[in-house]
């Protein structure tokens, strides 16, 4: 099965000497042991998955399980320590600087978990950034930006600077910036986490409409299980850098591969979330 985006045995170790870490992992060591023994952090280990074209693909998992690391591989903001990343069948890792740039300019845009706004530019210029980068005229880019700012509810804040905005407002600027680029792949790293329910609901609806209308491929990280089920045509679950389960929401819900997945999805299963005993583990 080869989708729009495919990861093949991707591993990522943060640190100076990934090879020893990979060796340890191959011997069955887990993330905690690798960190204890080598001082390096495992971001992902041996993840293979395929994201079909034209749909919303939801990624969930514990905090620190490697979700952000995973999506960063898709536009190659992170170089994998091992494995391949394919987009439309082409290995992104083989791209030269120019092709990679084209990929990022026209085909993939991203919403960052920590927003990544440009502090020295006004809200309007932040949102217009993607279009300006690919060479559009200032007027044209700003026009598009204004439209998207209105859709995320920030009309009137065009000339503010990021440090003058509330957390949710900053998040929406990041969102508008990615949407304004109008690419057909969207990587969204917890894009609604700082938003109130009304706005979140509104934006979920818009996103669904956008996807349906333009057939965009959206990779969507979220901690909100309901959101994942509402938006996702497929769902992937990560744990400690490994892919635990992946499939259609209904299938996952009905046949969780293990207790972890079951507990994770408890909320949408109608049951109350079982109390974990002792302390949480990240």
């Amino acid at each position, binding site marked *: 099965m080869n989708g729009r985006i495919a990861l093949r045995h991707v591993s990522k170790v943060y640190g100076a000497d990934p090879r020893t870490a990979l060796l340890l992992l191959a011997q069955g060591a887990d993330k905690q042991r690798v960190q204890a023994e080598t001082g390096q952090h495992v971001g992902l280990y041996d993840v293979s998955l395929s994201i079909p074209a034209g749909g919303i693909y939801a990624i969930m998992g514990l905090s620190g399980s490697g979700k952000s690391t995973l999506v960063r591989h898709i*536009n190659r903001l992170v170089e994998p320590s091992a494995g391949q990343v394919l987009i439309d069948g082409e290995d992104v890792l083989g791209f030269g600087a120019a092709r990679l740039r084209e*990929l990022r300019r026209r085909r993939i845009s*991203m919403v*960052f978990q920590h927003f*990544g706004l*440009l*502090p*020295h530019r006004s809200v309007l210029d932040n949102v217009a950034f993607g279009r300006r*980068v690919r060479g559009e005229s200032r007027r044209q880019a700003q026009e598009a930006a204004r439209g998207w700012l209105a859709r995320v509810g920030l009309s009137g804040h065009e000339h503010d600077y990021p440090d003058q905005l509330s957390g949710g407002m900053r998040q929406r600027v990041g969102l508008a910036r990615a949407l304004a680029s109008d690419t057909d792949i969207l990587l969204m790293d917890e894009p609604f986490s700082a938003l109130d329910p009304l706005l979140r609901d509104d934006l979920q609806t818009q996103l669904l409409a956008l996807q349906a209308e333009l057939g965009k491929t959206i990779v969507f990280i979220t901690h909100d299980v309901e959101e994942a089920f509402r938006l996702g045509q497929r769902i992937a679950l990560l744990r400690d850098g490994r892919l635990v389960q992946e499939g259609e929401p209904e299938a996952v819900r009905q046949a969780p591969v293990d207790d972890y997945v079951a507990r994770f999805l408890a909320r949408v299963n109608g049951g109350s979330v079982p109390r974990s005993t002792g302390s949480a583990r990240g």
Partner: protein
Amino acid sequence: MAFFATFDLREPINRAVETLVERHGDRLHALNDLLLQGLLLPLERVLRQAPPWLVLLAVLLLAWRATGRWRVAATLTVACYLIGCFGLWDALMQTLALVLVATALAVLLGLPLGIAIAHSRRLRAVVLPVLDVMQTLPTFVYLIPAVMLFGLGKVPAILATVVYAICPLVRLTDLGLRQVDPEVQEAARSFGTTRWQLLLGVQLPLAWPSILAGVNQTVMMALAMVVVASMIGARGLGEEVLAGIQTLDVGRGLQAGLAIVLLAVVIDRVTQGFGRGRRPDGEPGARP
């Protein structure tokens, strides 16, 4: 001291300089003349022949454009007028021409160099020690060979000034660029910026406060070199200072020294004013 092996570079150096002068002295003298006739003298002529009120008016307008505040612009203009009152107008214009050219050269060379070493570890490992040498090798030491090679006058003076004044700019450009938030850079790169777009649109604006501090230091050092320049035949305010010192006329030296300070302040405020952008709400913002 028997503890140290003896080891003498003096003779080889002397011989090397001598051969250099013999072989290339004429050509370099010609180069000197070229730069002088082509660049420096025309500028100097314009400045010296323009009526003082015109120059003052230019200062006023420039300072106003730069700082956006009439009060500051007027103060700077009065500072220049004051130098005229000291009877040093002509010397001021000569020094101004020299310093303008030297500062411009230092910025034109220093900024790209700083950017280059911020992006390449290897280049930095080579350039930083060279900067150490440029900044601490006593000016005198290379000034004399420079005079032998280029002849007396303004061109070697400018060279020496540039060599000395470029260092802080290179260092602070490098520092500023390396301190730019990696998360912001990553976000920008995710939109497919070219290196160039990233540099102009993100890195330079965010490093701008450091770079401006570097430009400030460059201006300060260029003006600190004015006296040294006059030791190899560049006329102007430095000459006054030297003459004041030699004749133990502290007042004459100090007055000319003050003129140099005033000139430094004027150039500094204008460059800093042009460098600093302004946010519509009045908070200072950076601009590339």
